[in-house]
């Protein structure tokens, strides 16, 4: 298997090189997506399927879609990438120095079990069987609550960029799709399947790989597809229901966290109720994540289909 690992790592480095320094912005982004898929493969090899799912769905998939969309918008705005001809040696030296220090540090660290045994020991008290979910939603729930707010902050940060300041208009550009075209057909077929897969990923996260962020990504993808296919109008922030959908997940998380103080502490989920509380948070969080991610991918309102 060592040959496989070595080959995979070589491919990862080559794809990264093409993404960072290769010619052509579009090509670079395509290589970045390939790179993300290869990294996901590496996570499978490292015995971390939860991370592999997150990397494939979010790191490669969503980030890739965001970047591809930007390539299109930039070329429409006539903003081509400047040609960079030569290597910037001082920067290369500094980056190389950081890399060398990291390689040295990595090689001088002895492997150990870390906190894995400690997590395994208290796992029965957390209400879930997947240790990664236990860390995310119970042991370090404060991180995850803040993380869900980070996602929201990025979306709100896009609003001041809306064309003409009309941040409450429908998100993204206007989409033109033939009403009976292939995309529309695909758009009709996929959402039910995506709904099934998304909900399954959240549900399964309690005892096997999966979780709110991975599930939310699948749902967001289906939503974006529906908008692109012209099946539904892009959501606008003028509608209170959409705004509520954005904050429901972090809001419930925070509210249940504060309610936990009745049991003795902030974000404290008593063992008997933990499973139910965590699942409730995950389900609503998935909805909020899906809406937030879909709005991010669609981009700030560009003045089409204003309500």
């Amino acid at each position, binding site marked *: 298997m*060592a040959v496989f*690992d070595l080959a995979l*790592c070589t491919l990862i*480095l080559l794809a*990264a090189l093409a993404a*960072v*320094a290769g010619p052509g*912005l579009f090509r*670079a982004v395509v290589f*970045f997506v390939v790179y993300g898929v290869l990294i996901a493969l590496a996570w499978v*090899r*490292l*015995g*971390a399927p*939860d*991370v592999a799912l*997150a*990397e494939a769905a979010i*790191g490669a998939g*969503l*980030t890739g879609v*965001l*970047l591809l969309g*930007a390539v299109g*918008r*930039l070329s429409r*705005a006539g*903003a081509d*990438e*400047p040609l*960079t001809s030569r*290597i*910037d040696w001082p*920067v*290369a030296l*500094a*980056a*190389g120095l950081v*890399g*060398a220090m*990291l390689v040295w540090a990595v*090689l001088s*660290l002895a*492997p150990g*079990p*870390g906190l894995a045994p400690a*997590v395994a020991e208290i796992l029965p008290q957390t209400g879930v069987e997947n*240790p*990664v979910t236990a860390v*995310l939603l119970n*042991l*370090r729930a404060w991180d995850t609550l803040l*993380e869900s707010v*980070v*996602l929201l902050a990025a*979306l709100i940060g*896009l609003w001041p*960029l809306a064309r003409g300041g009309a941040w409450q208009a429908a998100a993204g550009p206007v989409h033109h799709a033939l009403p009976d075209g292939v995309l529309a057909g695909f758009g009709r077929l996929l959402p039910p399947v995506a709904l099934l897969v998304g909900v399954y990923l959240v549900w399964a996260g309690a005892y096997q790989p999966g*979780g709110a962020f991975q599930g939310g990504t699948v749902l967001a993808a289906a939503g974006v597809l529906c908008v692109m296919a012209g099946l539904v109008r892009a959501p606008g922030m003028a509608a209170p229901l959409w705004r509520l959908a954005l904050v429901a997940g972090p809001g419930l998380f925070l509210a249940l966290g504060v309610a936990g103080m009745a049991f003795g502490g902030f974000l404290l989920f008593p063992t008997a109720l933990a499973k139910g509380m965590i699942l409730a948070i995950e389900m609503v969080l998935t909805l909020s994540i899906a809406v937030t991610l879909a709005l*991010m991918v669609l981009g700030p309102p560009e003045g089409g289909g204003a309500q």
Partner: protein
Amino acid sequence: MTVYAVTGALLVALGLYGLIAARGLLRRVVAFNVVGSGVFLMFGALGWYEGHTDPVPQALIITGIVVALSASALAVGLVVAHARVSGGQVLEDDAP
């Protein structure tokens, strides 16, 4: 699994170079994501022990991936808006 940790370290160096030296703004966003996944790969590979990866780094990496996506989304939005206003995707060197 040290090979993955070393690969992660090299990705950090490669991405850092692009993040600082590239002039195209979208290219810098790509490079930022390469640095991020390099750091994560290092983290996961260093937590690998006897066939399993420590769940704590795994959870932190998932958090990190979501944070990196959030940053990328804001960056992409700013790059596109900046291009619409200025007609380019470079930052003029107005800094003294």
